[in-house]
């Protein structure tokens, strides 16, 4: 098999230009989808018979929570590719994922707490999903802290990559153990997005919002990876020529 | 940069502090990844034949790799033990060749810097590796010690071994199979 196209794609100048071209095609559709879903979710969707209007924060909480996990998986896969095939671009993608993923996690935690206040009467309850989300945030922060503590970017790439791969093996175990832990304690059994059936008319805005979040993530990732490329290649010839 | 090291020859890297002598030695050992290019040992890239290469290689770094809480003899036994078995008599023989026979049962903590360097060099001798990579082998050694190391290196070359080294001053000056390579800062 001929791999030249792959190496061409992964070469910094090419990737830099390609990501720049892709960005608007991701960003503007993402913005439109999020605005549409926000309007429909907040004003059009019917009030929940059990939770009243407070359920509407779901339209931000659920997409953030699912993105937080997806971005972590993507980060680990990119890091794994970077380690195995010694690909600098993959490491740049992993580094870009970390910050965005951590923000999604923070957003999921904050919206979860806001949702929890009317539901449980407290800002924080040890709900299994929120607890796993909190530990996921710790995993992200550990990854970023490890990256930051190496001076040499290549060593930072590989060391943090190993951590990301170890982390992704651990994530399902953490999720399982936290659910197991919660099922034994029978504390606040009302889960935020639990089994309560969702009304069909509530669903389209949610799905569109999730897609919007995904595209938005793509657009921001383009920016971050471009910034990573710039900082790594600051002495390279193609950049000096372009400047 | 390109160089080769035939059996029985010594190549000495020279250059000022910060010229990259140690870094180059570490790249050649395979401790540091090369930015570009490749290193071949017996015709095989060291990335592919890493284990075979490391079997033939003995690296003496700036650090002596001695455990201060172990005696010189225990240090040698454990250090060389990763490669092959040694007997107490064999280890004592090499220690006395290096003039530190009476340090055998002393913890490395109480040895002087020069004595520690000699014990570290004993590990190189005991390893029986054909390729020696020596980073400043004569650091902390007195004149007698330097002469001793030079004699041991000459014997190693005569037996068909190779030596890659970095040193401030000329080792084996005038020896027919000793070459120098200057690194620019």
């Amino acid at each position, binding site marked *: 098999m001929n791999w030249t196209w792959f190496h061409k794609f992964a070469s910094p100048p090419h990737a830099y230009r390609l990501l720049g071209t892709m960005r608007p095609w991701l960003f503007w559709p993402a913005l439109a989808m999020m605005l549409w879903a926000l309007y429909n979710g907040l004003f059009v969707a019917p009030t929940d018979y059990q939770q009243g209007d407070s359920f509407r924060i779901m339209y931000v909480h659920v997409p953030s929570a699912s993105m937080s996990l997806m971005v972590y998986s993507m980060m680990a896969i990119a890091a794994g590719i970077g380690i195995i095939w010694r690909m600098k671009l993959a490491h740049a993608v992993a580094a870009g994922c970390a910050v965005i993923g951590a923000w999604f996690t923070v957003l999921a935690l904050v919206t979860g707490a806001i949702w929890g206040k009317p539901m449980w009467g407290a800002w924080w309850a040890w709900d299994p999903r929120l607890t796993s989300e909190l530990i996921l945030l*710790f*995993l992200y922060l550990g990854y970023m802290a490890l990256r930051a503590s190496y001076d040499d970017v290549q060593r930072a790439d590989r060391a943090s990559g190993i951590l990301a791969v170890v982390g992704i093996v651990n994530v399902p175990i953490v999720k399982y*153990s936290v659910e197991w832990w919660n099922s034994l304690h029978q504390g606040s059994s009302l889960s935020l997005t639990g089994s309560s059936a969702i009304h069909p008319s509530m669903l389209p805005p949610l799905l569109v919002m999730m897609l919007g979040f995904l595209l938005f993530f793509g657009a921001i990732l383009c920016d971050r990876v471009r910034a990573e490329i710039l900082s790594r290649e600051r002495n390279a010839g193609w950049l000096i020529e372009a400047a | 940069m390109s160089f080769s090291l035939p059996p029985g020859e010594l190549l000495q890297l020279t250059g000022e502090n910060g010229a990259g002598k140690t870094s180059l030695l570490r790249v050649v050992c395979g*401790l540091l990844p090369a930015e570009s290019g490749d290193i071949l040992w017996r015709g095989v890239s060291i990335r592919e034949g890493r284990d075979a290469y490391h079997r033939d290689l003995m690296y003496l770094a700036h650090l002596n790799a001695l455990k201060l809480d172990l005696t010189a003899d225990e240090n040698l036994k454990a*250090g060389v033990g990763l490669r092959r078995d040694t007997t107490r008599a064999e280890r004592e023989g090499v220690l006395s060749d290096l003039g530190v026979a009476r340090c055998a049962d002393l913890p490395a903590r109480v040895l002087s810097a020069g004595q520690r360097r000699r014990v570290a060099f004993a590990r190189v001798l005991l390893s029986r590796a054909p390729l020696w990579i020596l980073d400043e082998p004569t650091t902390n050694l007195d004149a007698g010690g330097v002469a001793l190391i030079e004699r041991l290196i000459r014997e190693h070359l005569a037996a068909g071994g190779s030596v890659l080294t970095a040193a401030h001053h000329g080792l084996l000056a005038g020896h027919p199979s000793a070459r120098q390579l200057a690194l620019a800062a």
Partner: protein
Amino acid sequence: MSRVTDAPGLWSLAGRVLGRELTLAGRHWDQVAQPLLFYVIVVTLFPLAISPDLARLREIAPGVVWVAAMLSCLLALESLFRPDVEDGTMEQWVLSEQPLAWMLLMKTVAHWLVSGLPLVILSPLLGTGLGVPVSAWPVLMASLALGTAALSMLGAIGAALTVGVRRGNVLLALLVLPLEVPVLIFGARAVSLGMTGEAVAGPLNLLAAILVLAISLGPMAMAAAIRIGVES
């Protein structure tokens, strides 16, 4: 010059690494004992901070014993690889033809023998102080034996990753503690089930599963991390 091919086999190598580590631990047992002392002191703090009432202490005993064990393991990790990297021994390991992952696994086993095992042996004594009944001793010890071994393996990955960083001890805690959450959950739960006389096979099996997973995958991660660590 001919090659030397009389290198030791895997098991003989394992014996050598274990022997060297245990000898070294014996030469500075005072440092080895420090994390253990820390464990005892942390457990002692809880009755002072909460209440001398055994009924109340009994409720929190599994958590206290486990959190203290986790912190003690964390403290001990700092001396797992760092001294060997700083004195150049680890470079020699990386440059030997021997499988680095295997040597690091053996080093971690030795580390567990001197830091984890004493903690397991000491735990019934501390448990008694917190109102753990004698009937729960076997569960307490079994959960800690499996759990501290898993903590050593997970912690060793973190220790290997931070060995190339100048001051790595807080960073080490940041990396390792989130990874250890499942061990804490299953371990503490096993103890509290054991104290009420319920079946404990479930969490103990889960702990064993985590340990097996950590032993089979951990050493590869450690070896890769150590290679980065000795690059500096």
